[in-house]
């Protein structure tokens, strides 16, 4: 006996089917030059998939990716230059990207540093443990705030005074320390037009056969 009858569900909601939908297939807004260049660089580096949970810093990049996809969709369908996959959590995103690499693709992950903290065991147990040359494009929440307050978020100080201050964002102060603890090499991109940063991150990941974080301490607006 079956718990439920074998029942294919062709339509989940009358008139609507969300499966497979690209939520940014026809996105509003203009693509910025910085984000357009960044996407071009990803494409030139052979990236096939961007697995992401968006934030405000990555939004222009995702808009540029969606515009490229929507422009080419009719002509190329599933052969879009870079496919965007939205995940629900960062550990899931990294495991998914590891699976993409297992299958022969060349993914990157695009997440915020807060999400990186969530991803600990997903990163350890998949990309790191498997030796996946995965570049973790990680936006830097809290860095501008710290600088505005005259505090260096990378000085290694994570005392209670830092953790509870409402005029600081504690994640900025934990980012480098966390990456060091997890054995993830990292570098910064402080200028969106600095293509060398991106190239170096990919080169290091390939050479060392492990994940590398590229911290996007910049704006793509």
């Amino acid at each position, binding site marked *: 006996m079956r718990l439920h009858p074998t029942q294919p569900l062709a339509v989940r909601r009358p008139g609507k089917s969300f499966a497979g939908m690209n939520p940014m297939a026809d996105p509003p807004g203009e693509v910025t030059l910085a984000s357009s260049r960044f996407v071009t660089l990803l494409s030139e580096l052979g990236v096939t998939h961007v697995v992401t949970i968006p934030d405000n810093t990555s939004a222009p990049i995702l808009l540029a990716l969606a515009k490229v996809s929507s422009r080419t969709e009719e002509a190329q369908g599933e052969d879009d230059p870079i496919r965007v996959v939205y995940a629900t959590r960062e550990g899931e995103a990294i495991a*998914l990207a590891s699976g993409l690499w297992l299958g022969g693709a060349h993914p990157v992950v695009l997440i915020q540093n807060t999400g990186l903290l969530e991803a600990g065991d997903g990163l350890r147990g998949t990309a790191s443990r498997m030796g996946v040359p995965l570049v973790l494009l990680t936006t830097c929440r809290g860095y501008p705030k710290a600088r505005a307050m005259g505090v260096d978020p990378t000085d290694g100080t994570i005392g209670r005074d830092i953790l509870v201050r409402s005029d600081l964002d504690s994640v900025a102060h934990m980012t480098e320390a966390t990456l060091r603890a997890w054995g993830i090499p990292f570098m910064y991109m402080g200028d969106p037009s600095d293509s060398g940063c991106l190239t170096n991150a990919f080169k290091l990941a390939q050479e060392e056969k492990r994940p590398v974080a590229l911290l996007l301490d910049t704006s793509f607006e």
Partner: protein
Amino acid sequence: MLTKDQLLRPLTDLRTDEVVVTCMGVTRPWGRMSDHDLNFASADSAMGHTADLALGIALAQPSRKVICLNGDGSMLMSLGALATIAGAGARNLVLFVLENGVYEITGNQPIPGAGGLDFPGMARAAGFPMVYSFNRDVGYEAALPEILKAQGPVFVGVGMEPGSEGPVSRSSREEARYLQNSLAASAVEFREAITSR
């Protein structure tokens, strides 16, 4: 409830060149029945991420069927993956969730909500277009060819007898070939195998 043999034997009979990703209590039984270079054990890995890993393989290889044999405890750990799979529209992914209601390899402790969870219902609600559910072997074997041919993502919930597998290791002492190498070495071998076909 199905035994592991009742679940896996028909699958080994029908399987040709599909990818099969396993985890936890089903890892050894599958490895004993099947020696195939497109088997991948999500062992010595991160619990809860087997379905995510399988989705990635499916998206990278859209013309090849990918079968994921996930546990119910593992599925609960990354339940959002149901939405990600449905949203990504991985037509070639068949996600089995083996519902034994326990964390088998740590001694059969109950999973949260054991006995009251409706995994097929969750899959439907997440947007899976094809959902199957079995709690006895009646009908399972007959439906399997259709399940493997269906345009997915396909979800298959299977009520399972609790087993007694201990923790899965990766070492030469393991009988299954796909457990005899490190996770990193297995990953490289699998990638080479799938990209050379």
